């Protein structure tokens, strides 16, 4: 018997809308808050653009109600509806602008014009071993604990003052070449006892 798997996307995918301003009822489906923000942004851009030389001359003849109301309103409505690559306009636009801006990186003092490309050389990655490699790596391990060695090796125990004073490791393990499959061996260490693997 199958079970139903539900998605609650509609619960989380709701958009803030303004349905009324004071007693004034707006359109039945409301005005998205995002659309209001777009309207304000387009209006600001139009206002700033109208004061720029060249663009201002072009915008001058356009009636104010077209320039400051109709055009921003239409654009805002369109941008509130459109989804670019499945994302809201402002999210997609941010990504596109970032991508386009980054394409200006020079490569050998030349700009790659044919394709908009950003180059990313992957950074170096230090990889610290933990014993899971197939060969013996260099470690120092201080007990209490145990070490299991699954490859051919030679082991020696240090004695004397230097070992007692923990200046030198108590047990040294070295890789031993030439053997076939080795039997696993376990070294159990008391507190403070050190094993050095190399």
């Amino acid at each position, binding site marked *: 018997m*199958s*079970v*139903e*798997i*539900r*998605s*609650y*996307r*509609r*619960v989380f*995918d*709701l958009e803030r809308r303004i*349905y009324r301003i004071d007693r004034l009822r707006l359109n*039945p*489906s*409301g005005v998205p808050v995002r659309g209001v923000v777009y309207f304000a942004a387009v209006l600001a851009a139009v206002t700033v653009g109208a004061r720029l030389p060249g663009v201002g001359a072009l915008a001058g003849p356009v009636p104010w109600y077209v320039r400051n109301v109709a055009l921003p309103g239409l654009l805002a409505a369109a941008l509130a509806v459109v989804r670019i690559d*499945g*994302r809201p306009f402002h999210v*997609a636009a941010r*990504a*596109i602008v970032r*991508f*386009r801006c980054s394409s200006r990186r020079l490569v050998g003092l030349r700009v790659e014009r044919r*394709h*908009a*490309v*950003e*180059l*990313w*050389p*992957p*950074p*170096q*990655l*230090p*990889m*610290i*071993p*933990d*014993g*899971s*490699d*197939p*060969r*013996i*790596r*260099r*470690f120092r*391990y*201080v*007990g209490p*604990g*145990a*070490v299991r*060695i*699954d*490859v051919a090796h030679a082991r020696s125990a240090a004695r004397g003052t230097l070992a007692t004073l923990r200046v030198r490791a108590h047990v040294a393990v070295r890789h031993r070449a030439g053997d076939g499959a080795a039997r696993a061996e376990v070294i159990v*260490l008391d*507190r403070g006892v050190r094993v050095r693997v*190399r």
Partner: protein
Amino acid sequence: MRAPLSFTYGNCVFGARASDAWAVFAVEPSSYQWLGDDGKRARMLALLGALEAIEADVQILRVAGRSRPASPGGLLAGEHTSASRAYMHAHDRRLAELGPARPEVFVAVSLNEPERDVATYLSQLAERGPSELWQTLREAFATRDHRILPASELERVRVRADRAHARLAEFVPAREARSVELQWLVRRTFCRGVGEPDVDGLHEPRALVFERNGEAVLSPLETDVMRWCDCVVEHRARCLRIEAEGGTSWQAQLVLGALPARTRFPGARAELMFAPPESLPFAIDLSLNARFLPNELALRIARKRVQDADQIFRAEADGEQGASDLGYERTQEARDLLAHLQASSRPPLLRATLAIAVGAADERELERRVEACRRAYGEIRLHRPLGGQLELFVQHLPGQRTRIAGYDDTLTTEQVAAMMPTAAHAVGSERGFYLGHTLTGSRRPVRFNLREGSDSDRNATILSVGALGSGKTTLAQKLKYEGFLAGARVVDCDPKGDHRFHLLADVAPHVDSLTLRPDPSLRGMLDPLRVAPAHLRQDAAVSFLRDLLPGRADPAWETAVVAAVDRVIARSADPTCLQVVSALRDGGGVDEQVARALEVYARSGLTQLGFADPDVTPPRVGARRVTYMPIRDLPGPEPGTPRSEYSQAERIGDQLVRLIAMFAMRLMGSERDRLKLFSFDEGWRLLGDPAGRGLLTALQRMGRSELAVPIISTQLVSDTLIGERESLENLIGATFVFGMRSDAEARRALALLGLDGDDRQARQALLELDAGRCLFRDHHGRIEAVQVDLVVPELLRAFSTTPART
């Protein structure tokens, strides 16, 4: 862009900051397709349990698997001809064409606390003791360089990783990823579509294991640095061009759009990390990056959403058109979500994105593959964000959170578990000859190791079932040929005379051919007192001789036979059935009558093969590696006839079959350490009655201790077989079920495999299986639909039993 990974330590990866540590675990993918609904639900529940127990941000990576190095060339033994070398080359080529056998699944678990809101943060602070609070304050205001980690801190990270492992391993078969695997995982992201990186030691076991107990301290004294000297990523508008190790890799990064509001599980629409990737003929990588929202936080979010939904509904209702359907349904869904989160299990939510990486060797192929991916996902849109390719590429590296905005969705743990990232079409052996490929779009290669049963201490017998012309005999001959290449001794019994394995150019010089026919020169070849194992000798002889008696024979006749066999075994160093007849003849009375009845069979027909004559020396067989035994005129009942209705001739035929099996056992018993194959068609004769199964049991014991592998083929899945399925469980190792011709047969075949015979879809699938296609149940009980694939066309023609068209 900041480096997504700063360094790795064992199975721990550290993100852009050293404090952002993740533990990476490898999870074994498992066979899934042919599980029943209960089995699939159990898998989903296990994944669900794991997701809830982790209690941390998680990343699930499902990537194209590693190519396994076990080239079948290593399985060859001894001297071989150019034909066999060509066979191995064809094997290697086909394996290279098909790619990896199964995907690799890795789960990365963040070792930091998950996202919390202020209320949860303060609650947890209040629950901590003074010493913990002091430690937290010290870490927050510490002035040391956070890029430097002391060995003790690395040890604490390892201990936290162990705890995460313990939580995860309680639900899924997870182990710590090895350093070499992390290296492979990172390097292969740059090579998608053009091959795999060559990583030393990837397939070798680890050398050292250090105990982690929170007190011991492990200090690594050396490190490796992965350098990308020749690897540069060109970030184009909707793709990446990467100069990789194996060539130029073109990659497109896609991300899943809105999921369906309701789906059924099990079902392809829910299994988004299994069904679509497995339907594609090329590999894709998937990365599910999820933020863990604890239940308290999820509840607060859900309550807020209920308020928002209600507010929208009221606002719409105030209007002239009233509330919309969407507005109303949203209020209900929000409440359903709240109820779900208030359940006793206190489930979390996951804010996740599912990213898909497609790679190819050139741009055109890349576009073709992207379109194929979109078709595979059907109604669910795959977005290819302009300018977001690099972020999504990095998101596929281990230990990463969602990097791209606008695509994350809040999912329940059921939704994520139902995606079945750990499901695979996994069947067959790790090493061995190439058997064929799965019947999926991904065409996963399947290997089969004839020694698997013996090596893994499981049943060794191979059972092959299917209608006439479905491919059973072709499979058996393929297995015999590969056993021969591996140095096995092969005993091939051919009741129908349609085997061709012994005629192959490289096999023929190694064949002893012995046609079992009514020929005086073969007298005694199958004498049960010679061929049967010592402990079965008496019973085998009595059974054989008793079945030769007329059906209306007096019970005293049976007693006479038993007594005569007893006497002969006790007195003779080399007892034979002919001696038993002589002993009866000398007895007088009833014994003499019995002797007269048996003498007829001792001198004529196939039955004379059961009476060793001191004047006849049968040909010696067994010196060569292959013994081919066609059997002419073997009487036999119609399949399915109850034994109580057998005619005398049919009972004799059954006896001969058992004697042939015993003869084969004797041939195979001489070399304990060599692989031995015994092939027998019409296996229902052995499987259908206790005596035959007893013989197979004896062969089975040989299989485990002496590398003997019976290959039994049968056309019929009788009710007897189904009734005895439990006893067969102790006999059969691997089972191949080829195409069936009737619904009833299909039902019984499914029952034989342990599947639900009432599953109409499964029955229909069996009926539609063409020649060479089968349901394969391996030694571990995993089942997949497989196409048996003879890579050399000449062999396919040679082995085929279908008459050629003229």
